[in-house]
């Protein structure tokens, strides 16, 4: 197990990402932040709080569960638990920031983008991730990245967040 980021580093990086989002979108006025379940939701919440601190306005936040939009429905044996999608604001003409912990094959992001578009027609959808670990299977890339790494097939990344795992820590793990 190799540590990639500790708590302080993650906090600094999220601060940087919040700045980048505000810079690129000229403030928070037109933003909507959507976290992908599960850990993306907590990261999205933190971004919303950071943006509120800097800009004094709180962008609306939603959560998305991509289960119903998966492209491998027939391959999974158990019907997975559906956490539910809640987007309590109008996505039309908004600049949507989609937040997830790890970007890997790109299939989760594809499903999330499809689902958001079923809610309306955003002006843009931008993607923010903590770790981009490469090995994409679809033509998808992130707009905001905390850390880019390349992993072997036998390795994976664990993004641990306080809300779920009791600590903020990102580690690289070797599969047995």
């Amino acid at each position: 197990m190799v540590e990639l980021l500790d708590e302080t580093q993650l906090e600094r990086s999220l601060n940087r990402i919040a700045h980048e989002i505000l810079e690129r979108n000229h403030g928070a006025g037109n933003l909507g932040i959507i976290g992908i379940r599960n850990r993306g939701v907590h990261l999205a919440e933190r971004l919303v709080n950071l943006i509120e601190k800097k800009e004094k306005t709180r962008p609306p936040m939603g959560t998305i569960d991509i289960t119903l939009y998966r492209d491998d429905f027939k391959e999974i044996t158990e019907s997975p638990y559906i956490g539910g999608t809640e987007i309590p604001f109008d996505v039309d003409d908004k600049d949507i920031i989609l937040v997830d912990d790890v970007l890997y094959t790109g299939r989760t992001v594809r499903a999330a983008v499809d689902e958001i578009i079923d809610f309306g027609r955003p002006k843009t959808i931008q993607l923010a991730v903590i770790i981009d670990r490469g090995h994409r299977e679809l033509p998808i890339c992130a707009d905001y990245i905390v850390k880019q790494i390349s992993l072997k097939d036998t390795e994976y990344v664990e993004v641990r967040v306080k809300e779920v795992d009791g600590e903020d820590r990102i580690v690289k793990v070797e599969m047995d």
Partner: protein
Amino acid sequence: MKKHLLGLQSYGSDEIFEILDHASTFRQVLERDVKKIPTLRGVTIANLFFEPSTRTRISFELAEKRLSADIVNFSASSSSLVKGESLRDTVENIRAMKVDMVVIRHSAVGAPHFIARRCDTVVINGGDGAHEHPTQALLDLYTIRERFGEFKGLKVTLVGDALHSRVIRSNIFGLKTLGAEVTLCAPATLIPTGAETWGIEITHDIEEALTNANVVNIMRLQLERQSSGYIPSLREYAAIWGIDKNRVGLMDKDRLIMHPGPLNRGVEITQEVADSEESVILDQVTNGVAVRMAVLYLLAPRQKEEKHEEI
């Protein structure tokens, strides 16, 4: 989850709650601008309606289309049934067409079970004779849960023809499994022998049945029964067992009025009660689509081998 949904008698509370939990997710989807989700793309479903049905058939069709499944419809009047084909041959043909799921409504008790034994397809019972109508009961349970949250200690009164009603039977099985206190009220001629083994209160007195009840679920009086001598006249049924405003007043203040439809206004329910604030008859219809989506989603066939892929 079981492979088929043939009736609620064989379903445990875990399975029922799993369906109801999923139904609330699908209920949210129905509030969106675009109500279609791609979940069951590539799954083929045959709707076999050997008996007339409007509500259930449309509700299933809508649920299937919302989930992006491919569907074929087969109804008694337009099918080979009128040409004398047996159920068994119809089934063989369905099997040859390689559909993934079958929804069946049939006047013969056990028709869905017959198909389930003979085909690999997933079978969902859309009503078989006077036996069971599980998806109707599930949507009733969903509607009750949406309002009261739980079933333990809840007083639910079912009024009407228990002899011919599959809706009553499925409701009793589901409600009992979830721990509700169930009372059945009907004329003595419309209560089947063996009803005393269901473990519910049975009464012929509507006022006693409604006192302090939280939910009343009123069955349609199947008008064709009148001519077969089960009840003296429609007017008498309306007077003795019909639900009007005064009788509703006997119920608990926290109450719901339900009816699976179609309504015979002025017979089993008065106009005033059917259109009152406490009546959730149209919510039941909307919830029906969500509940059927949940059933289809949970029972849709998946590949046998274990293959969990992170996406």
